């Protein structure tokens, strides 16, 4: 079986950051592999190690800068990667449907049996691409999976979906399927030195819309980011000042007033 893992390089804002136009200044962002996708990659690699998956392919929509991050997925054991980018994406706020346009074309090329996708991207947090992709390509799906056992012979994935409030739904999902992976599904490995060396030789196929048989008009977004701002803090917390000792002393008084005692 072939596993396609969708991955994304995301920026995490520093504690202090500036907003330039409708985004955080690039210099105030630390780029890394999206946390949810790290778990999705690990799930794919574990399926390969268990002899269930023959090939694990990572796909990303991202600029050239993202290659370094995508290579981390290769260092952790994905076999190769496809990186889709096009001028059409520059400065645009891609909606779910345009991401699905791209991923559908990649699925047509790659013909996976299972697509693993992070529940959401840490930056935009739409949490919708995996399920929308499943609808488009006619796969079954399950959102927010935190436990996965694949029965390739029976053609099903037995999953737990993590509902709110400490309840998990136990669901049997027919393959082919798209599963959106929740953090905690597994323990993502650190890339080994050997893995990092091997990743240098693995292929990251740079692909544009034309290569996928798409035109810029196909991925036109229905959404425009018109404004970005820091939310007004409605904090009425009493901030305890002073060095650590003074602050701890004052806090101890507060805690005792509230009934805390050793």
């Amino acid at each position, binding site marked *: 079986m072939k596993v396609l893992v969708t991955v994304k390089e995301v920026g995490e804002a520093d504690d202090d950051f500036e907003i330039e136009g409708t985004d955080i200044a690039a210099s105030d962002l630390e780029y890394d592999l999206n946390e949810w996708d790290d778990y999705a990659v690990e799930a794919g690699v574990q399926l390969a190690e268990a002899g269930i998956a023959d090939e694990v392919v990572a796909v990303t929509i991202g600029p050239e800068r993202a290659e370094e991050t995508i290579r981390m997925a290769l260092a952790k054991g994905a076999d190769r990667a496809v990186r889709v980018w096009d001028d059409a994406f520059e400065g645009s706020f891609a909606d779910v449907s345009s991401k699905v346009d791209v991923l559908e074309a990649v699925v047509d090329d790659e013909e996976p049996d299972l697509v693993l996708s992070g529940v959401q991207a840490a930056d935009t947090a739409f949490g919708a691409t995996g399920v929308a992709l499943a609808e488009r390509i006619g796969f079954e799906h399950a959102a927010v999976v935190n436990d996965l056992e694949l029965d390739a012979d029976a053609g099903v994935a037995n999953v737990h979906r993590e509902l709110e409030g400490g309840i998990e739904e136990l669901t049997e999902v027919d393959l082919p399927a798209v599963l959106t992976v929740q953090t905690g599904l597994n323990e993502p490995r650190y890339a080994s030195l050997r893995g990092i060396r091997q990743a240098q030789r693995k292929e990251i196929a740079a692909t544009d819309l034309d290569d996928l048989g798409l035109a810029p008009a196909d991925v036109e977004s229905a959404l425009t980011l018109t404004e970005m701002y820091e*939310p007004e803090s409605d904090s009425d917390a009493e901030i305890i000042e002073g060095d650590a000792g003074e602050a701890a002393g004052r806090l101890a008084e507060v805690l005792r007033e509230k009934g805390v005692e050793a």
Partner: protein
Amino acid sequence: MSDVLVVSEHRRGELRDVSLELLTAGRELADALGGDLHVAVVAGDVDRFADELNRPGVDRIHAVENGEEFDHTVYAAAVETLVGEVDPTAVLAPNSVNGLDYAPAVAERLALPLVTDVLGFEYDADDGLTVTREMYGSKVETSVAVDGDRFCLTVRGGEFVPAEGVGDAEVASVDVEAPASGARVKGFEEVGGGDVDIADADVLVSVGRGIGEEENLELVEELADALDATLSSSRPIVDNGWLPKNRQVGQSGKVVTPDVYLAVGISGAVQHVAGMKGSETIVAINTDPNAPIFDIADYGIVGDLFDVVPELIAEFE
């Protein structure tokens, strides 16, 4: 057209709070659009849920009897059918785990622009719809303009007040034929049982990502001992396997309301806050003065937990 269709949510026999919040959001949007508010209730005891959803401002409730529990195939088919009947401008679903299991599929199927995790919106006839949502882990808010005559929104829980009172909506039963589901629910499991119930604790010392390494947990364990408190945590600590699931506070963990909640190295993501905002007194220790945890804290120390916590332990020894 110009109507709003709200899709309610229930689980294991209970209407979920977000359903009543969606009625408020849906009514606001319907007023802006100049249309009616329709509400869908799908599966389970639809008559009882329809009663509960019948609040002022609701014009029509569509009851779809089909199965007991959530099944995304049934929900998607029901929404598709009702969109065909009602012809709404907007479909509103909860931004819940189940909402995100069918709303993106429905939006895709019906070619509706989709905006998820919506905190608020404004509509006017000239500019269309503008939605407020967060990005970068709640560090910023954004305005997003939606280009389209119709759209689908998933609305975050806790952002709109629940609708109250008794309404006079018509309740109509709707037959929906759904194909056999390729995702079959086999049951439910409650997680987070075990030796300790953090929901019972009067004082919680709760640890988050700021603790850095597993071996540093000792420090907060010591603090919990010194304060005669129970140790809990935010999600990353449990994801890392450093504490068991029964210690997790938040949307997917436990909801706690202790007398004192001491958040140590917790930034206060919305999913975490959902599980502890009802605490009597909230104290936060965090290095980042902009961390959202300070928005709901009663007392805060902006500082390094590795400096403050040892001093605090000393105060109680």
